[in-house]
């Protein structure tokens, strides 16, 4: 068994961990009740007091938190710590173009770094390791999260960020990185480019890689492992809870271990909002047990999956996540970026020349996500010159790219040609095999 970063916590007997979780839950509920007005209002509404929370099992009494809550209190309204103590801001895209903003205190950053470090260590990363990080750096938590995790455990970090694939390969080759962090689709792309450059995995020194920020499959795992000559591990996270490292696989690759002393997972039925039976699939919900900046109580991730309760061969006692199988809302993940159809809608609705009807088609071509948006012309609009159409397409392409953060191919179609649906609109066809 490889090195356990924090043996006391990671291998803590389950009953003992429950006590720790219960104590932390009571603490965090007390804090949000006293410092976050929206939480106080939610709890007062159902007559719940912090004193009613005495063990981790009492968590089911607490109200849920959603992305809508964060949006309604944009940007800092859900923060619990004063701005004096907030040292970092991160953000991800929201459903209407408004960002979901989080703030972290120094202790939050340390907890996050440790969560990442625990996952790295569980898969063979050591102080001698060189970690090549090809996640984007910025408001997105991928780059900086993995970065601080690597530094926290004393490894050497190469902050390559995203883009310029040839340079990425040169850096990995020359610096002899043994660890790679990036999105799984980019890892497959890197493997292809490596081959095109006439190189083989033996020209690199990679031993392990951590891939997350978008759903992937066992088939992709095989492809990445063969193409880059490493062992590929699943890392799960979301900025609202902290970022990468909320859960990371161990050397046995049997589902990410949740750092459940910090982030408590539940699975609920997204319709009834009741907890499902142990091991059943439903919506993943997280409570940040130790957070100060923006603690979230029962935050609905909208990711669908189940929890694995069987003890892991590695000796860690934490719960594990099964593969994410989908979403309980309409969020799409395109090249690692969260995209909501409503963001696209808000761009289309502003242009009088097009109708409100559209259809999104997503394919994965050469391991890159390609999004096409069929946009319907308004009945009264017509053109007799190709140039006019090209100008409209260019404008829509640019507006959509600036709204969602990824480029989509815009395809204009005649008025009335997009199928109208009765009831729930079906405006997405996802052809990716995930």
């Amino acid at each position, binding site marked *: 068994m490889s090195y356990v970063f924090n043996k006391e916590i990671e291998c803590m007997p389950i009953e003992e961990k429950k006590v720790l979780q219960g104590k932390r839950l009571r603490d965090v509920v007390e804090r949000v009740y006293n410092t976050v007005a929206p939480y106080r209002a939610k709890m007062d509404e159902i007559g719940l007091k912090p004193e009613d929370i005495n063990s981790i099992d009492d968590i089911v009494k607490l109200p849920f938190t959603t992305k809508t809550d964060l949006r309604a209190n944009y940007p800092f309204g859900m923060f619990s710590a004063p701005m004096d103590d907030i040292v970092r801001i991160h953000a991800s895209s929201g459903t209407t173009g408004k960002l979901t903003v989080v703030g972290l205190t120094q202790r939050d950053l340390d907890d996050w770094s440790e969560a990442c470090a625990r996952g790295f260590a569980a898969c063979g990363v050591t102080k001698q390791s060189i970690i090549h990080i090809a996640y984007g750096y910025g408001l997105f938590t991928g780059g900086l999260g993995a970065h601080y995790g690597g530094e926290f455990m004393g490894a050497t970090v190469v902050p390559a960020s995203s883009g310029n694939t040839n340079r990425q390969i040169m850096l990995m080759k020359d610096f002899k990185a043994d660890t790679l962090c990036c999105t799984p689709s980019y890892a497959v792309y890197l493997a292809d480019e490596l081959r095109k450059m006439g190189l083989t995995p033996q020209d690199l020194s990679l031993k392990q890689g951590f891939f997350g920020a978008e759903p992937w499959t066992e088939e992709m795992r095989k492809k990445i492992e063969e193409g880059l000559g490493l062992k590929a591990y699943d890392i799960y996270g979301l900025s609202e809870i902290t970022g990468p490292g909320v859960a990371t696989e161990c050397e046995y690759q049997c589902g990410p271990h949740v750092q459940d002393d910090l982030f408590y997972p539940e699975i609920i039925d997204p319709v009834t909002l009741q907890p499902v039976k142990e091991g059943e699939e439903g919506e993943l919900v997280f409570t940040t047990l130790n957070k100060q900046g923006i603690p979230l109580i029962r935050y609905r991730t909208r990711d669908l999956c189940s929890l694995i309760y069987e003890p892991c061969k590695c000796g860690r006692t934490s719960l594990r996540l099964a593969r994410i199988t989908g979403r309980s809302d309409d969020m799409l993940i395109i090249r690692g970026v969260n995209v909501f159809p409503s963001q696209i809608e808000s761009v289309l609705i502003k242009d009088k020349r097009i109708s409100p009807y559209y259809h999104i088609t997503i394919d994965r071509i050469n391991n890159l996500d390609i999004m096409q948006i069929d946009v319907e012309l308004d009945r009264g*609009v*017509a*053109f007799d010159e*190709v140039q006019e159409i090209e100008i409209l397409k260019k404008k829509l392409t640019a507006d959509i790219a600036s709204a969602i953060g990824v480029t989509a191919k815009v395809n*204009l179609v*005649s*008025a009335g*040609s997009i199928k109208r649906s009765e009831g729930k609109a079906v405006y997405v066809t996802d052809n990716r095999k995930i």
Partner: protein
Amino acid sequence: MLVNQIAVFLENRSGRVAEFSRVLKEADINIQVMSIADTMEYGILRAVTDDNKKAIEVLRANGFNTAATDLVGFKVQDTPGEMCKVLEVLEGHGINIAYLYSFARAGEDYAVILLKVDDNQNAMKILAENGINLIEDNIL
């Protein structure tokens, strides 16, 4: 003089041109001249019919995005170099042509050329001054 043209947006889907002609057939409209500008993803069908007003009405009712545009039309001798002469005149006056198409009927010794320019009046004035044979309004 001016020739009224209809232009239809065609997305890249099989059977669209056939649908277009079916709609006109059912309304008993005759197509006099037609051309298609195609790109990778869509096309624009341009046509002159014997009743553009009615054509636009029935096409729009059938979901075709249809535009009406006035083009400058003129006749030239159906012999080599005739079109070149006209284009040189326009070029000499800095007139930019967005698109152009032409046709010649069997048995006739002239061809008709239709062109789209920014300023129809100016283009017609220049053509007339240079002795180019403009056609009568909407008579092909």
